């Protein structure tokens, strides 16, 4: 780029085009935000207000009532399990899954990258092919395995089958390949064993990758649906996402929409806040895991 070129991002000045761009983006943000806004408004109304078509488009005064009702007691006509408990379950699941994935994947990648041993390629491919087996295509047999192991309705059952991850293993493997060989050489000359090197050198270097992976996997864990739907029959083990589904009793007019929408807000806020506050890690995680 030579010195006379315009400032970056501005090839030429076309005010109408810039105006058009802003208009499209504002429309886009409105389109994306509209469902959330209506959800919030509905969560602050009474059921009667929602059933008067069209429902009000400004928040009502039932915020406190609706939220305390769902958090402490749940809905009246559908499942009557308190959402507070479900949020705790979701949080536990959303923390165990990323921590578990990161721990088992990082040591597996360390073994694959820094050691030569018989069957190394075999193990690598074994992990690799799991990319092709999403839980949706093997639900019934996986359910049977969980039932045989006696982990239905438990945190172990909710998390263990989702912890093995080829993506995380790949990500760390990819990253370890970029770590200069000199570091390992220096560690060996200093007489440090492999685990010393792993803990003192590799772990601190992997912090960024771990943070990015954590954000992505937290959302993945919090939003799990099919698997918890199958293996939780006990209301005290429901996650928030399952809880909402159980509140819809069928028939528009029968569903307690004000409580369902309050629960929807509670289900989407934690991961949405994580995405917006940890945007940098989120974007990095998204891009890295799809490499």
């Amino acid at each position, binding site marked *: *780029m030579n010195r006379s*070129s315009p400032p970056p991002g501005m*090839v*030429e000045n*076309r005010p109408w085009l*810039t105006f058009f*761009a*802003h208009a*499209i*983006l504002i429309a*886009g943000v409105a389109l*994306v935000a509209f469902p*959330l806004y*209506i959800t919030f408004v*509905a969560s602050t109304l009474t059921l009667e207000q929602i*059933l008067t*078509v*069209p429902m009000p*488009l400004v928040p009502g005064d039932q915020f406190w009532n609706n939220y305390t009702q769902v958090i402490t007691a749940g809905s009246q006509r559908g499942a009557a399990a308190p959402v507070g408990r479900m949020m705790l379950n979701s949080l536990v699941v959303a923390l165990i899954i990323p921590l578990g994935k990161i*721990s*088992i994947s990082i*040591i597996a990648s360390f*073994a694959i*990258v820094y*050691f030569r041993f018989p069957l190394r390629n075999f*193990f690598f491919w*074994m*992990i690799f092919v799991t990319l*092709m*087996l999403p839980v*949706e*295509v*093997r*639900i*019934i*047999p996986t359910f049977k*395995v969980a039932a045989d192991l006696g982990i239905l309705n438990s945190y172990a059952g909710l998390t263990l*089958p989702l*912890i*093995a991850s080829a993506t995380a293993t790949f990500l760390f493997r990819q990253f370890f390949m970029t770590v200069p*060989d000199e570091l390992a050489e220096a560690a060996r000359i200093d007489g440090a064993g*492999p685990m010393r090197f792993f803990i003192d050198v590799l772990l601190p270097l992997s912090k960024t990758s771990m943070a990015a992976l954590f954000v992505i996997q937290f*959302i993945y864990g919090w*939003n799990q*649906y*099919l698997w918890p*739907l199958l293996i939780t029959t006990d209301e005290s083990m429901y996650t928030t*996402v399952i809880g*909402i*589904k159980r509140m*819809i009793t069928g028939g*528009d*007019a029968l569903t307690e929409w004000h409580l369902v929408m309050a629960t*929807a807000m509670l*289900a989407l806020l934690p*991961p949405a806040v994580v*995405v917006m506050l940890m945007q940098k890690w989120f*974007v990095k995680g998204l*891009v890295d895991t*799809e490499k």
Partner: protein
Amino acid sequence: MAAEKRVIFRSAWLPYLLLAPQIAITIIFFFWPAFQAAWYSFQLQDAFGLQTEFVGLRNFHELFGDPRYLESFKITAVFSLSVASIGIAISLLFATMANRVIHGAIGYKTFLIWPYAVASAVAGVIFAFLFAPSVGIITFALKQIGIHWNWVLRGDQAMILVVVASIWKQISYNFLFFLAGLQSIPKSLIEAAAIDGAGPIRRFWTVVFPLLTPTTFFLLVINIVYAFFDTFGVIDATTQGGPAGATNILVYKVYHDGVKSADLGGSSAQSVILMIIVIALTVVQFRYIERKVHY
């Protein structure tokens, strides 16, 4: 595995110990169930699950003779292609605009990416409410312009509902990848085209869009995989495959036949077919990555 480390550690047992947790979980929760799915697909179980009989390819044969299964294939194709193409087009528009504005770009980005965080089942519930036949606010608005909306009874409207909800959730993902793709295009190329007298629209189609082809292709595959599997929650929270099977996509049918109808053999045969589709899509995706590397 192309590249290899020069410096390696030596131990006869440590690497196996490090791999053990990952391999154990992989065998217990991936290989064993996948193997069982394949095994059940060749068997027929009686109604009480007491007796099983080896029937060879009969489950597959019946499946492909079943018009509802073939219909489900068609529905899945329509659904996933709609979600992928419309979602990609809208996201590309937003990303191009966001790449153009200098002021407020970060703000727009922040407010466009959060739907990624919404669980598909929650997105389903929200859209079921917005479009609810009797109380929905959008249903009301549509009525004002003369459209009678009832997805509970009408199959085509049910399909539109699940497509809209699925796209809404996926816009953020596509948007981020397009924005990254746009930002990696050298400014000098755009400037050269501008100096040659190409206007913004012409520049987009002759310079920008061809350079985005790899990103677009990548997103196409990712979106199809998304529509195939991750939209289970959207379907289950809204139409549950109905009305009359109008939104019964393949993954929902596996669940429905296996869990609700307890047809183990038929559901397992469907699982096996789905696995073959995933493997094919993964191969396509990796082919693409190889090509990108050789550019």
